[in-house]
């Protein structure tokens, strides 16, 4: 695929998914672009230092089901809609967040809160696709999601690691917004981990020797090159690229293995599944993976909203603050953007089950680290939280801001056939006040 220019052939091969990818890999068919089996990025100081200097990355903490902005980053204490939690001061004078987030309160200088999202879609599926892709569905174009775009933009040509990894273990909501490479092609699709912390079927089959594995790969490459002659198409290219990366991916298994971390680091992240997956995400971005999504489901608190948030928000507070500390200590926070986002927020109104329902009219997201003006709040909801009072932000503006923070032009064009498709809708501008 030419730089910033891809062709969408619409063939089924184009949509090759991870299951097929790994399934085929397990069968032993692989090609070797270079010997990547000695990969040990984490213990290679020169390479690690270079990565730190050059590469930008993103960790998306996906609060699936819709976390309540009132119980996290936009509290309304004392309002009829405010609920029982208090607001607490943060390390930044004038900014308050929920008392459920005391650790993040002490790290507010690293974070920008956007309190004025109005994304107009209160449906789980539609909202999730919108907030993963930055725009509404279009029947004529299969848009890539944020991870796929960033895999394309931030991934390295000869990367030895996956470009897009997604953890989503809970079953609820997993299918609402699966990773989608769209017209970019399967090369930029996610490695999705749903049942295990470590990719399954990543090992070379025991009955195949390493030599046999290489020889099979050579044969496949030979046949593939012969087949390629006189043919064109991004599906074929993506297919071959995927095979060429297999041995690197096979060698990346240890990146997912948090038992490689010192126990004291594991203790910092804590024993929960979310904590362990975020630790794995840190390991991955440290090794050069440009985009990792950690899906924490399920925040859909139609009943007992406050008890649900008593469980989930302290976990988010602990894990997110630990992640920011860890990235900062490793010199990675300036080049790593940490996002909290969901498909929508929750209603200010409290229902008779003491729950809050779906709400997309005035909710919050956070951006921390790379390219972001930490210690700031952009936008404002009204006194009860029912409407945006100032600085309305839609999905497109949010995505433009994310791209800009990472040094990517939001108006950069991709091409689907001859049709130019900008990263964000024409006329969309990044929010300057959010950017460093």
């Amino acid at each position, binding site marked *: 695929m030419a730089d910033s220019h891809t062709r969408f052939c619409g063939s089924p091969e184009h949509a090759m998914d991870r299951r097929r990818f790994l399934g085929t890999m397990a069968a032993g068919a692989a090609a070797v672009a270079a010997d990547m089996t000695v990969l040990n990025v984490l213990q290679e100081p020169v390479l690690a230092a270079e990565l730190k200097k050059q590469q930008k990355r993103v960790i998306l903490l996906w609060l699936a089901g819709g976390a309540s902005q009132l119980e996290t980053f936009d509290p309304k204490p004392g309002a009829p809609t405010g609920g029982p939690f208090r607001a607490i001061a943060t390390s930044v004078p004038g900014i308050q967040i929920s008392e459920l987030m005391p650790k993040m309160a002490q790290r507010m200088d690293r974070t920008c809160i956007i309190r004025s999202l109005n994304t107009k879609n209160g449906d789980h599926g539609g909202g999730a696709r919108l907030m993963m892709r930055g725009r509404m569905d279009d029947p004529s174009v299969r848009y890539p999601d944020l991870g796929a775009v960033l895999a394309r933009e931030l991934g390295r040509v000869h990367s030895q690691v996956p470009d897009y990894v997604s953890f989503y273990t809970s079953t609820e909501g997993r299918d609402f917004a699966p990773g989608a490479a769209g017209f970019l092609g399967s090369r930029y699709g996610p490695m999705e981990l749903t049942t295990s912390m470590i990719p399954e079927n990543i090992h070379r089959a025991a009955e195949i020797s390493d030599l046999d594995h290489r020889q099979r790969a050579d044969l496949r490459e030979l046949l593939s090159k012969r087949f390629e002659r006189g043919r064109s198409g991004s599906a074929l290219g993506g297919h071959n690229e995927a095979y060429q990366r297999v041995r690197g991916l096979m060698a990346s298994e240890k990146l997912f293995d948090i038992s490689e971390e010192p126990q004291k680091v594991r203790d910092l992240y804590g024993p929960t599944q979310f904590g362990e997956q975020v630790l794995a995400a840190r390991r991955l971005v440290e090794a050069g993976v440009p985009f990792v999504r950690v899906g924490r489901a399920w925040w*859909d608190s139609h009943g007992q909203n406050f008890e649900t948030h008593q469980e989930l928000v302290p976990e988010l507070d602990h894990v997110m603050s630990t992640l920011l500390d860890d990235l900062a200590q490793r010199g990675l926070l300036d080049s790593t953007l940490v996002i909290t986002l969901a498909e929508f927020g929750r209603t200010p109104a409290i229902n008779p089950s003491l*729950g809050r329902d779906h709400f997309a009219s005035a909710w919050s997201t956070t951006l921390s680290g790379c390219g972001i003006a930490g210690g700031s709040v952009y936008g404002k909801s009204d006194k009860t939280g029912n409407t945006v009072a100032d600085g309305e932000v839609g999905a497109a503006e949010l995505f433009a801001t994310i791209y800009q923070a990472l040094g990517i032009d939001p108006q950069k064009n991709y091409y689907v056939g001859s049709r130019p498709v900008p990263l964000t809708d024409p006329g969309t501008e990044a929010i300057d006040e959010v950017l460093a």
Partner: protein
Amino acid sequence: MAAVKSESVKVVKEFSRPGPVFTIEAVPDSRRVIFGGADFQVCELDLAQEKPEPRTWGAHESYVTGLAIAGRYAVSGAYDGHLMWWDLETGKTVRTIPAHKKWIRNVAATRDGKTVVSVADDMVCRLWDAESASLLHELRGHEEQTPNHYPSMLFACAVSPDDQHIATADKVGHIVVWERATGQSVATLEAPGMYTWDPVQRRHSIGGIRALTFSPDGNLLAAGGVGKIGNIDHLDGNARVEVFDWRKKERTHEFPGDKIKGLVEHLAFHPGGDWMLAAGGANDGFLMFFDLNAKSVLVQDKAPVHIHDLVVNSAGDSFIAAGHGKILLYEIKS
């Protein structure tokens, strides 16, 4: 025995409130009630008046979730972690004390009016001298975390009719009975069916024992909550009540619910033990009456709103309920 049927339980008066009312208590020898809720306020309503109007006594800094009458005081507890003492006659604040580091979930008092009991999400039950507000005992027997490493909650407490024992119950269904005089645990019971941890679909929990009460003879201890829930986004489980002979540590009754869904928020016995009443709700409210002798459900009906608390009068022919946006006066006709 006073028989209860659906048609004999009627709302005879109702009062609207701006949000949920979580707790209500009746002032002895009067028709006054005190209540508190999501507006943070502690208020009084005198039902003897021709057109009763609520009178605000004062306010906490968060949801008011527990009230008890202790001698000449009313004592309120709230999610702000404070207990407030109020003069029962004047409604004036007597004192405010920081009682717990986390949300106070319920407040009770001994019938002799000398001891106030509070339970909170710090998982401690504290006994307080009703006159001086000095701390008498700290009862620690509930785990701070659930088995899945999330904060637990201590929702319910009750005092035995002879004032000698205190019962407490938490989110995972653990019940402890304590000796009031010594603060020692004398029995533990388990009702795990009232706690749902979803490790697969949604990875959090819901439920817990929300209601506790001793039978008039003090031998039985009833616990209420919600049974196992498939979709924990909602209170979509059957309302559940279990009754224990707490001294023998045996469960004597189980009412798993077959018609009513939602949380049992409050349990109360008829003063003579004729029936036991459970009230609560999900998006709707419900009332259930049980005959413990026959181990049968007498009534299971919808209520106009989700009910959080209620108090039965001494004759057992009336009760007043606090719920989502309403206070409801019920009559029970035999």
